[in-house]
Structure formats: structure tokens, C-alpha cells
């Protein structure tokens, strides 16, 4: 079985790796379900702000745009990292992965600033049904980004130690799938939470 795929990229070379990658696609499908329920909760509770401030009073387009650009760019640099890996450049891969990480950290910094700011303005997790659903949805995404950053750091250590092998290339490939997925989720948070929250 393994001899069939000699032309395939490194991360597809062993049956183990192929199954890991397929398994990760299934994991992402489960993540889609998780975020769907959170989006549905948000949609149902939209407008139920009780005495707390309205989202249109708090959301600011510039911060949200910066966050979106940071994440979109990090998704792009993550793609370049994979491109470098395909060409066997360990240095290129590590460099672009670190750039991706820094962009992700920037995103996270803005999100934390944003949450702290809203909390000061009186919009906290328990202050209304709307804000609960907002913090859970955006917070779950932020938590995913945080975990992704921690995960990528572990992979960077392994890359430095072992170089690009069957195992490390598979791991980097899988985290790139994860990172692109988080980007897509953010696009929908950007549109359906922030933009619509500012309009309605």
C-alpha cells in the first residue's frame, strides 16, 4: 500500500499519516457542528441585551477590521509555510510558521483588549443573554486560536529538532488545516456578529 504513493507529498507517504489526515477532516466536521450550535444560539439570543449596552454601541469597525486582516494574512502565511515545506526548505517553513504565529498572537491581543474594553463598558458574560452568547461564540474561537498557537510552538520545537520528516510534515499539514478552518469560522463571526451587530 505504501509503495503506491511514492509521488505524493511527504505527509501522505505512510498509511498512518493518511489516516491521521482523514481523521483530522472528520474532527473538523465535528468542529463545524460545535460552531453551528454556537452560531444558532447567538442568532436566537440576538437583541436580548436586557439592561446591558447594545452591540451597536460597543462594536468598532477599525479594531474588527484589523483583527480580520491579521487572521486572513496569517492564513495566507500558513499556506506559504506549507509551500516551503513542499519544497523541502526547513528554514523557510520555520520562518513562515513563526510569522503565522506572530500574526495569530496579534489577533489574540486585540481580542483580549476588546473583551476587556467591553467588560469595562458593562457588557459582561452574565450581564445579558445576548452578551453570554457573544462571549461564548467569540471566546470559543479565541480559545481555539490560543490552543493552535500552543500547538504550533510544540511543532516548531519538533521541526528544529528533527527537521522535515514523514511525521513532522504530517503534523504541520494538519495544523495548517486547523488554522485555515479557524480563519473561515472568523469570517462568519466577522460578518454575522460584528457587521450585523453594527447595522441592526
Amino acid at each position, binding site marked *: 500500500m505504501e509503495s503506491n504513493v511514492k509521488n505524493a507529498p511527504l505527509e501522505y507517504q505512510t498509511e498512518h499519516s493518511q489516516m491521521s489526515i482523514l481523521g483530522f477532516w472528520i474532527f473538523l466536521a465535528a468542529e463545524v457542528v460545535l460552531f453551528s450550535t454556537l452560531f444558532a444560539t447567538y442568532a436566537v439570543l440576538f437583541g436580548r441585551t436586557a439592561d446591558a449596552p447594545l452591540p451597536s454601541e460597543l462594536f468598532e469597525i477599525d479594531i474588527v477590521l484589523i483583527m480580520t486582516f491579521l487572521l486572513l494574512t496569517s492564513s495566507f502565511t500558513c499556506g506559504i509555510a506549507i509551500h516551503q515545506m513542499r519544497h523541502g526548505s526547513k528554514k523557510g517553513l520555520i520562518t513562515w510558521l513563526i510569522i503565522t504565529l506572530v500574526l495569530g498572537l496579534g489577533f489574540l491581543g486585540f481580542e483580549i483588549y476588546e473583551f476587556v474594553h467591553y467588560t469595562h463598558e458593562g457588557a459582561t458574560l452574565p450581564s445579558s443573554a445576548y452578551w453570554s452568547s457573544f462571549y461564548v461564540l467569540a471566546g470559543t474561537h479565541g480559545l481555539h486560536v490560543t490552543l493552535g498557537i*500552543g*500547538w504550533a510552538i*510544540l*511543532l516548531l520545537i*519538533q521541526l528544529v529538532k528533527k527537521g522535515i520528516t514523514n*511525521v513532522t510534515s504530517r*503534523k504541520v499539514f494538519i495544523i495548517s488545516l486547523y488554522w485555515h478552518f479557524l480563519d473561515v469560522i472568523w469570517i462568519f463571526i466577522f460578518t454575522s456578529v460584528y457587521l450585523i451587530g453594527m447595522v441592526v
Partner: protein
Amino acid sequence: MFSVSTMLIAVPTGVKIFNWLGTLYKSKIQFTTPMLWALAFIPSFVIGGVTGVMLGMAAADYQFHNSYFLIAHFHYVLIAGTVFACFAGLEYWYPKMFNHKLNEKFGKLSFWLFVIGFHVTFFPQYFLGLDGMPRRIFDTGPEWFTLNFISTIGAFGMGLGFAIFVFNIYYSYRNSKRETTGDSWDGRTLEWATPTPVPHYNFATVPTISSLDAFTEMKKRNESTYDESKLEPIHMPNNTGQPIIMMALLFMSSFALVFEWITLAIIFLVGVLVMMVVRSFDDDDGHHVEVDEIKETERQLRGL
């Protein structure tokens, strides 16, 4: 809304009932204990399903809502759908797992006690619901006494049935004949093609499937899934405690979260993260079971 979702479940389930009946139709049914459980599932589940459709009618549901009718309905669905299936599966695959069957006599006794007890327990509860008894009360009125009393008798019947089932495990461990072939029920599916106890690598050679009920066909042609000429080393993971430690930590953090013991939950979650790091850096690639070892194991188990 809930009417629509009820129908979305009910209609395909109705089709499934006919699938099961169609599978049984004109077959040679052997009334062994696992089959009895499977057969008892169908009418019990139909009762639960039909009353489910009644609950799905919005107008009528104003009456049924949160009454014992609902309780009876979901117990009929859940117990017939999952508990009966658990019993059936456990009795059926028991010889594959533990190398001996459960005693049929005790198995049937526990089956009849449990199933009759089940109907005696939950059938009266439909009428309690129609009589207006709400769910989640600790003190019932005298007009509901008789049916509740019958229900209690049935519950003791189920308890006795289960006690006999547990005793049967002990009794069969002491007295049942040990398996020799690995094909305890003259099965049609491939799990019965492995010898019992199943070697830790499962199939020595991966079977090639050429028809429905592949194992039946193989037996007709006097073949087996084992082909000594095609043996190859089998890749297996090494034994490790990592998954169970990780799951134990996750369990404890979930448990702590249920009671909102946040500090404790965080400590355990950090433990989970540490385990993830350990796993990430674990480059244990497993080992191969060599051909000689497979040959020896299979020859011994298959009596070749």
C-alpha cells in the same frame, strides 16, 4: 416546530420497522437469547414510537405535555431501543469476548422477567399520564395509587431479571463449555472468522470480500480468512498508559466543572494539556508482530 422534528424522526423509523420485519420474513429464526432480545425490541419500540407520534400532534400535546404519558413514551423508546440492544449484543458477542457462552436457561429466564417486568412497569404509566398525573412529583394522589402500585411490581420484576443476568455471568464463568472454533453461532459476519480468544492483532491476513455475507460463502467453500502464504508482519502500536491517564484527567475536570469547582477543574485541565504535550513529543512508532509469531499463534488457536 417540534411536530415537524417529531415527524422527521418518526417517519424514517417507521420505514426501519419494515426493514427489520423484512429481514426476518421467511428466515430460519433461532430463538436464542440474543435473538429474543432483538425480537422483543420491535413490538416494544413500536409502542414507544406510536405514542411518540401522538406526542408530536401539537393539539393533543397540550394534554400529554409533562405528564406520565411522556415518561412512559420515552422509557419505551430508550429501554427497548438501547437496553434491549445492549443485552442482545452482550449475549451475542459474549463468547467472542470471554471464550464461553452465557447459559441459555438463565439467559431466557432473565429475558422473560425483564421484558414482562418492563411492560408491567411502563404500560400503566401511559394511563397514569392520561389520568393527569404530572411528572416529577414526590407525592401522588390516591386515585393514581393502583396503577403506580402495578408499576412498582413491574420494576421489581425488571430488577430480578437483571439480578439473574448478573448471576448468569458468574454461573457461566464456572460451568459453560469453552469455545473451540471461534464461530459460536454459525455466524455470517467476519468477526466469527477469527479464532477465540481473538489474537491481539485481530486478523492474521486481511480477508478479501467478494460477496454479501462473506464468511458464509467462505464456509460453504470450506475456506477460512487465514492464508498462511500471505502472512506479513503486522504493525501494532506499543502499549501505553497515555490515553487512560488523559481520559481520567478529562473525566475529573468534567466532574469538577459539574459542581463548579473551578480551581480543581483548571488543575485537571492543565494536566490534560501536559498529557497532550507528552503525546505530541512521543515518537513511539509501535512494533511489528513477526510472521513466525503469527504463524505459531494461529496454528495453536486453529488447531492446524
